[in-house]
Structure formats: structure tokens, C-alpha cells
């Protein structure tokens, strides 16, 4: 079966929501089981006392990336059909910085806050509530941001093309960088005073 299955018509669209529910459960379970329902565990990555976020995030990104490249290479999936989020340079950077500020204050990101909500963290409930308010505020103030939101559209630009590298070379360097960061994280954790949480 050549993927992606739904865009290829292998699985009918009507299964979409059931599949969404099942994949979401896998997503939520792994996030919670890894400790992402705790803001103080998540924040360990930024203070050096617990790098769980760094380890899980980069392992996941690299795993999925290898799977996609491998399946595409073997002809089991047409990776050119995969959805690529358009790259609007200014909007991506500014949005990322605002999210970074939200992260440092709130201690969650949206997906992890939902895991916190699922196990009864009241702080996660407030964070999740804040998300709705934030999206509402953005939408209502959209005319103010419209120009910025739509500026510098690079479309579905790929990072390796921008750097003038082959996809596989960049992928290899990313894996090396991830492993390097894992060693670095071990080293920093040993130096930093433990935080009880």
C-alpha cells in the first residue's frame, strides 16, 4: 500500500476522524508517559535539571524523519504529497518568539497542556483556557497583523534546499547534532543542582 493512504484514496475519507482519534491517543499517551503533563518537568530543559523535552522531542523528530525518507526511498510512500506548512519568514519567527515567551511563563505548550488537563492539573487548565483567549484575540486583531502575517512567503521551502544540501546529508547532520545534544544534556544535568518537583 503506497502512502500517504488517505490522499492516495487507499483509506476512505470517512475513516479520517476515527484515525484522528486513535493517533491522538497514541500522541497523548506517549506525551504523558514521558512526563509532559508536568510543567516543572518540562521547564527542566530550560534550566538544565531535566532534559526530557529535548530528548523526547529530537528523538521523535529524527525517528519520523528517518521513516519518511526511508519509505519515500523504497517507494512505499510518495513524500511529495505530504503537507508542508508554508514558510512565511517574519510571521514564523515572530510567532516562535511569542510562543517562547508563553512557554517560559506558562511552562506548557498546547499539546502538553492538554495532557496536563487530562490528569487534573489545574494550571494546565488555565493555560489551555488561555490558548482559546489568545487565538480569539489574534483573530479579532487580525487586520493589524495581516500584513506581517502574509509577508515574505517562501511557500513549501525545505531547509536543505535553502542550505544547498542534499536531503540525506542534512538528515545525517541533524542526527549527529541530536546525538551530540543528548551527550551535552547528560553532561549539563550532572553539573546542575537537582530541583525537587
Amino acid at each position, binding site marked *: 500500500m503506497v*502512502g*500517504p*493512504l*488517505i490522499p492516495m484514496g487507499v483509506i476512505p475519507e470517512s475513516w*479520517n*476522524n476515527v484515525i484522528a482519534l486513535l*493517533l*491522538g491517543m*497514541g*500522541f*497523548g499517551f*506517549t*506525551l*504523558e*508517559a*514521558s512526563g509532559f*503533563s*508536568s*510543567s516543572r518537568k518540562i521547564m527542566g530543559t*530550560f534550566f538544565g535539571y531535566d532534559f*526530557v523535552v529535548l530528548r*523526547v522531542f529530537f*528523538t*521523535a*523528530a529524527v*525517528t*519520523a*524523519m528517518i*521513516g*519518511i525518507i526511508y519509505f519515500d526511498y523504497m517507494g512505499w510512500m510518495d513524500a511529495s504529497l505530504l503537507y508542508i*506548512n508554508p514558510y*512565511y519568514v517574519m*510571521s*514564523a519567527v515572530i*510567532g*516562535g518568539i*511569542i*510562543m*517562547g*515567551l*508563553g*512557554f*517560559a*511563563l506558562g511552562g506548557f*505548550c*498546547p499539546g502538553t497542556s492538554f495532557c496536563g*488537563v487530562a*490528569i*487534573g*492539573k489545574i*494550571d*494546565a487548565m*488555565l*493555560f489551555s483556557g*488561555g490558548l482559546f483567549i489568545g*487565538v*480569539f*484575540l*489574534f483573530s479579532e486583531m*487580525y487586520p493589524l497583523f495581516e500584513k506581517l502575517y502574509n509577508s515574505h512567503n517562501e511557500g513549501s521551502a525545505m531547509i536543505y534546499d535553502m542550505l544547498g544540501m542534499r536531503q540525506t546529508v542534512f538528515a545525517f547532520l541533524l542526527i549527529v547534532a541530536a546525538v551530540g545534544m543528548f551527550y551535552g544534556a547528560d553532561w549539563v544535568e550532572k553539573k546542575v543542582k537537582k530541583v525537587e518537583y
Partner: protein
Amino acid sequence: MEKLKRDGSFYINPYLGGVLLGLVLFATYYVTGRGLGASGAVKSTVVTAVHAVAPAHAHHSGYYSKFLSEDESPMSNWLVFEVIGVLAGGFLSGTLYGRLKLKVEHSPKISGRKRLAVALLGGMLFGIGSQFARGCTSGAALSGMAVLSASGIITMMAIFGSAYLFSWIFRKLWI
């Protein structure tokens, strides 16, 4: 086999967690052609709510109208079902490892009330930022990294880079 600890202290190995999460993400791409997400479900909900309360306003707005189509309600969005799954999956894991408890988690150096106030503020900012970046840590950064898109890598670096800086500025909230 070691006896499963149910006092809430047990977490799976982070590299195992990463591989499992990576496989879920890969499966999502393989089946649906799209990545995982979280903030998109919030957006769909807000669009639906505004459309229900003030339909004319939603249709006139430059932003809501992007996500309103004639035949389908924005709530039937894929990500809404996915996030319901996230809640269920998180609840299952929390049940299995004994972490179900209604509480406010905060550093002993700040009050619970202060924690709740900054959590709300942080969520609002994350909501705003995720609209600028067309996705959050899941939809833009993680899913984007898996396909090596420029938007994914740049958004990831912007989120984590600035979070390091802002965490240090607001370190009294945490350590």
C-alpha cells in the same frame, strides 16, 4: 519484570518515549499525509464558536472566513478529533501510572495563585504566537522538522531559542 510503580513517579525512558512519539508522527504522515497538531483544534473551536454567536462577523473577518467553508463545520476538523484522542491517551497514561490528581503544580517559591495567573497569560501568548507561526510546537515545529521544512526548523529554533532567554528572565517563577 519490575513491578509497575503506580505512585506517579514513573516515567518511561525518554528515548523510548521519543521513538514511540516519532512512530505515531510517522504513522500520521503515512496515513493522512499531514502531521500532528494541537493549536489547530483550538483555532477550529474558536472559529466555530464565533461563527455560532456572530455569523456575519465571522464571514466578514479576514481571519475566521479563511477557515469557514459552506458545506462543513470547522469543528469536523481532523485536529479536533486528534486532540480528543490526546486527552483520552493522556488520561489512560495518567491512570496507568497513578498520576490522576486535581492539583496546581508550582514552584515552592511562588504561590498557587501566581502560578495560575502566569499559566493563563502563558497560554494566551502561546495562542497568539501559534496563529502567527501557523502552528505550535506540535504542528509547526515537530511535524515540520520530520519533513525537514524550513518553516518547521525555523519555528522550532525561534520557540526554543527564545524560551531559553525568557526562562532565564523569569527564572524566579520556576527555580
